[in-house]
């Protein structure tokens, strides 16, 4: 075949254009070197040559030379498997990260490494009682005043701890549901991420159908997916729209012949499907499930009345089984409902699930995520059964349930710490008030003996009842529920409301010095009912209080421990949780970083590489231009023949 005279020019021209374009891509890469989510681009080229085989009759001296270079497409350098690993890891890391932040707020007042907190205030109380047990000091108002102020410090610290836990709970709830606050919560964030992924699916597909790979939009979508994976564990997969031909399902990415056999790939772009992964445990078996949250671009342009596109799912706050709605004021046991996209045959919400940490069911059923900040928030807000499982009234619990809402939960929730502080406040107040009742009522005890009560607790219960209903005028309460403003009451003390009795502050109530009567139960029912052999000592109440301070008073698992050790144990449980979580966080972060580095090594911009490319393309460009000159010279030579 005869070579066209100017053929070389178009080859050189294609090379010039190609190199120019490649330099443009280098420019784009360099410009976006620090753009978040940017993926390194590359111009794919191919050599242009004949499409058909050379002719049999072709001149034998002729050889086949191509016509230059073709610019095929600009592509991204990205590995979807690395993305998958990164997102999985991101969920894990975010879970630990969120838990770490929550535990840190608790640590601020429970970790007494650098501060004197509740535990050390108990030491102070013990010290002041040690001073006060001296017979020469037991009735000195100065020592009682000191004791009172130490007890007050303890109650104030309990109050502020309870308040801090409540604030932390409210903040945790706001992290889930930011409605009404200045920042969006996870619910709003997830919904808006689903919206933007759904919209990007539509935009990308539209662009791709027109031949534009929409790389920047894909970057945006990848960023959104990365962000979403921090909230909930997700699975991302590509799929193609299908259609029915008779009974046969066909996919738009393939071309089919008349027999329905696949004969090649069409230009129809693939769709991207995002599913949330969760576990459902029915108390016996745990099964993994997924539910589609973004179904590609399908029906993405159709909108519901509230503006939600058909192709995206939704997440919202769910009511508890008892019908109440979690709020910022009452965030314990918050649940979320996830529902899938609007399907063509069943509409919206054909599939849905509600998270359940297992906090308020006894069946052991729970629905939870493997990771993500949402699960961390839900775990921290789950309710603990500490108060019902570990009872301070020495009544045994038959149900040996979990103190954590579910067996898959790694850390104790806010409610657990609140329950334990409540138990401490209640038991401490009960013990101290009871001892002070004993220390103030020896005269009354004589009369109670006649009633034939044999057990000490019976006698004091009866006296307490009389004091409460007003038939006996007895000031004995030292610790009260301070929300009760009309009179001193101690029936429903919690860490949040424990306070010093007004009577104690005003000086109408004192630490009892009537002594404990030595009751001999065997003599109670004897004629005359004289069950008391002798009067006790002034220091009886204080000494018993001191004994209480060092004795095992608080039930904790299967053992009993002192108030101080109990508080120490709460702080240590928290410290252990924080320690374990920090370890997990460090490991998960390291792994995440390594995935990030791997991703960046593939998709990031390397200055060295771009500089090398720049030099290469400049040289190639120069060479192509030089080729033009060479061709021009050859043409000149040709034209100059015979001149």
């Amino acid at each position: 075949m005869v070579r066209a005279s100017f053929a070389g020019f178009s080859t050189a021209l294609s090379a010039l254009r190609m190199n120019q374009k490649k330099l443009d891509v280098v420019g784009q890469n360099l410009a976006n070197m620090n753009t978040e989510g940017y993926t390194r681009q590359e111009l794919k080229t191919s050599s242009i040559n004949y499409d058909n085989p050379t002719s049999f009759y072709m001149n034998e001296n002729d050889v086949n030379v191509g016509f230059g270079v073709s610019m095929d497409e600009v592509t991204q350098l990205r590995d979807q498997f690395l993305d998958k690993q990164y997102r999985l890891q991101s969920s894990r890391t975010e879970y630990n990260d969120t838990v770490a932040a929550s535990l840190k707020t608790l640590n601020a007042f429970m970790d007494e490494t650098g501060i004197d907190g509740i535990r050390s205030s108990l030491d102070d109380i013990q010290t002041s009682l040690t001073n006060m047990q001296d017979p020469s000091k037991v009735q000195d108002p100065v020592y009682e005043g000191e004791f009172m102020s130490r007890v007050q410090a303890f109650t104030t610290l309990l109050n502020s701890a309870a308040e801090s836990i409540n604030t932390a709970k409210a903040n945790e709830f706001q992290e889930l549901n930011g409605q009404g606050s200045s920042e969006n919560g996870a619910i709003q964030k997830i919904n808006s991420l689903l919206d933007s992924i759904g919209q990007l699916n539509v935009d990308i597909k539209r662009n791709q159908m027109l031949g534009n790979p929409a790389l920047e939009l894909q970057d945006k979508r990848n960023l959104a997916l990365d962000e979403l994976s921090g909230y909930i564990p997700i699975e991302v997969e590509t799929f193609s729209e299908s259609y029915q031909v008779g009974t046969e399902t066909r996919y738009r990415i393939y071309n089919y012949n008349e027999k329905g056999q696949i004969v090649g790939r069409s230009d129809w772009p693939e769709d991207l499907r995002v599913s949330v992964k969760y576990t459902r445990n029915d108390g016996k078996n745990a099964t993994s499930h997924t539910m589609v949250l973004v179904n590609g671009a399908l029906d993405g342009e159709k909108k519901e009345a509230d503006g939600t596109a058909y192709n995206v799912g939704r997440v919202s706050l769910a009511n508890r089984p008892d019908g109440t709605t979690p709020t910022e004021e009452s965030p314990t046991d918050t649940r979320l409902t996830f529902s899938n996209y609007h399907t063509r045959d069943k509409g919206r919400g054909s599939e849905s699930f509600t998270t359940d940490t297992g906090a308020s069911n006894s069946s052991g059923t729970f629905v939870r995520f493997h990771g993500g900040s949402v699960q961390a928030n839900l775990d921290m807000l789950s309710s603990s059964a500490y108060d019902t499982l570990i009872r301070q009234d020495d009544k045994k619990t038959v149900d040996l349930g979990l103190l954590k809402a579910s067996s898959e939960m790694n850390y104790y929730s806010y409610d657990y710490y609140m329950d334990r502080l409540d138990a401490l406040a209640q038991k401490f107040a009960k013990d101290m008030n009871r001892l002070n009742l004993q220390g103030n009522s020896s005269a009354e005890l004589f009369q109670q003996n006649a009633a034939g009560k044999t057990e000490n607790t019976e006698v004091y219960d009866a006296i307490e009842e009389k004091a409460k209903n007003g038939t006996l005028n007895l000031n004995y309460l030292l610790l009260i529920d301070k929300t009760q403003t009309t009179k001193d009451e101690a029936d429903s003390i919690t860490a949040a409301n424990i306070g010093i009795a007004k009577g104690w502050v005003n000086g109408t109530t004192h630490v009892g010095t009537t002594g404990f009567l030595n009751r001999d139960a065997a003599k109670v029912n004897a004629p005359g009912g004289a069950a008391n052999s002798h009067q006790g000592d002034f220091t009886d109440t204080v000494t018993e209080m001191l004994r209480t301070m060092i004795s095992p008073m608080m039930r904790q698992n299967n053992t009993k421990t002192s108030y101080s050790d109990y508080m120490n144990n709460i702080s240590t449980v928290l410290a252990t949780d924080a320690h374990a979580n920090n370890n997990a966080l460090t490991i998960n972060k390291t792994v995440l970083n390594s995935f990030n580095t791997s991703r960046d090594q593939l998709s990031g911009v390397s200055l060295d590489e771009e500089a090398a490319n720049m030099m290469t393309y400049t040289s190639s460009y120069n060479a192509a231009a030089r080729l033009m000159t060479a061709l021009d010279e050859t043409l000149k030579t040709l034209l100059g023949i015979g001149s």
Partner: protein
Amino acid sequence: MRVTARTYYQDYARTVGELHGNLNESMKQVSSGRKYSAAEENPIAYYAGKRMDNQFADAEAKEVVIKDVQNRLYQQEVGARNIQQYNMRNVNTQVLALQQDTKNSDMGTVGTYETQFEQELGNLVNTLNSQYDNFYVYGGNDMETVPFTLDIDLKEGLTDADAEEHIDKSGISLTYHHKFPGEDTATNIRIRYAYEDNSHSDKGSYAISYALVDEKGKEINADGSPAAKPGDSSDAALKKLLNAMREQGRMSTGYGSLRDRTTLIDTYTGGLNMLTGLSSDTLKNLDDDAAIARIKGGENGDSVEKSIHSKEDSMLNSPVSLIAKTILTSHNLMRKTESGTESERQAARSRFHQDLAAFIKQNDDAESRISDTYRELGVKFAALDRTREQLDLTKDTLTQQYTDKLGIDTYDAVVKMYSYQYSYNAAMKVGSNIMQSSLFDFVQ
């Protein structure tokens, strides 16, 4: 491996950040001396550390208390020693002298001795009212109530009295004022020592009557109403007295265990317990009737002093009773010699000799009873001394344990700090050298 711009900077920044963190941490350790700055760094060490904090605070509080208790015990001990060494010994010496006829034939001399006896008894009661830091060391903790008052009520003779008014007979009363636990007002218990027999005979004996009285000294019933006749409140008074003598001041000082309060040191010695030699524990272990019998002491009988067991721990053998006896009998001798009939004079002299002889016999035991008290107090004092030393040792051990568990090894920490500092500086230096370089820097 492709080195991209972002990874490069991120990795570098992370490394430098970590090194800086390490440096900061080790600097904190060196400055605070603490191995951990948060419980989560080592929860078990934290737990153990806080338990030690509790033990340390407990030991420290007890040490402070022990000092005070020791001072109080010392005050009691000195008081008991004074009573024995001065009051009782003096009276004893004087009684020995007075036994000699050269001394007792002149009533002026007898009168002088009697005055001395009265003074010694007054001093003794004064000692019983000793105070330490607003606390009556022998009388309980009510600061407003002075525990002991003495009333020496001398008539013409031992038995001279209006027959109707039994109380007006010569007698010496020690009244114990005590506010009992749970009561708003003080109870006054009068312990009156007097010659029992109304006849002018020398065959009678001395006895003690117990009564509850009001502030003016009038006998009252337990409910506060006036007593119908003398002696009505006797049982109630003895019951109250028993309660008072059973009072204790057991304290947790590191000696013994609070879980069994009987193992704790009783830091309180009641004045009446000291005088009678009946400890609160002894009385606690007896039932009420037996305990009251022990306090009263003696048996009914007609021969003088026969009924009194000289060695018996009881109110009848207390130094107050003994000295009271010397006063009463001296006074009786004096009055009867001066104005009595011959038979009365004879009876009085006979009585006098019997009483002084009985005194000598009884006083030795009474002295040893008092010295038992201060020896016991001395033992308690020494026990508290040892306890304090032990607490000191506990504190030292705890400090050592604390350092082992939670303290840093200073040399190790300082070396670590310097090594982190070098790494950090080196990283910064390397960073500043290579941060800018890429192939671009070499492209012309």
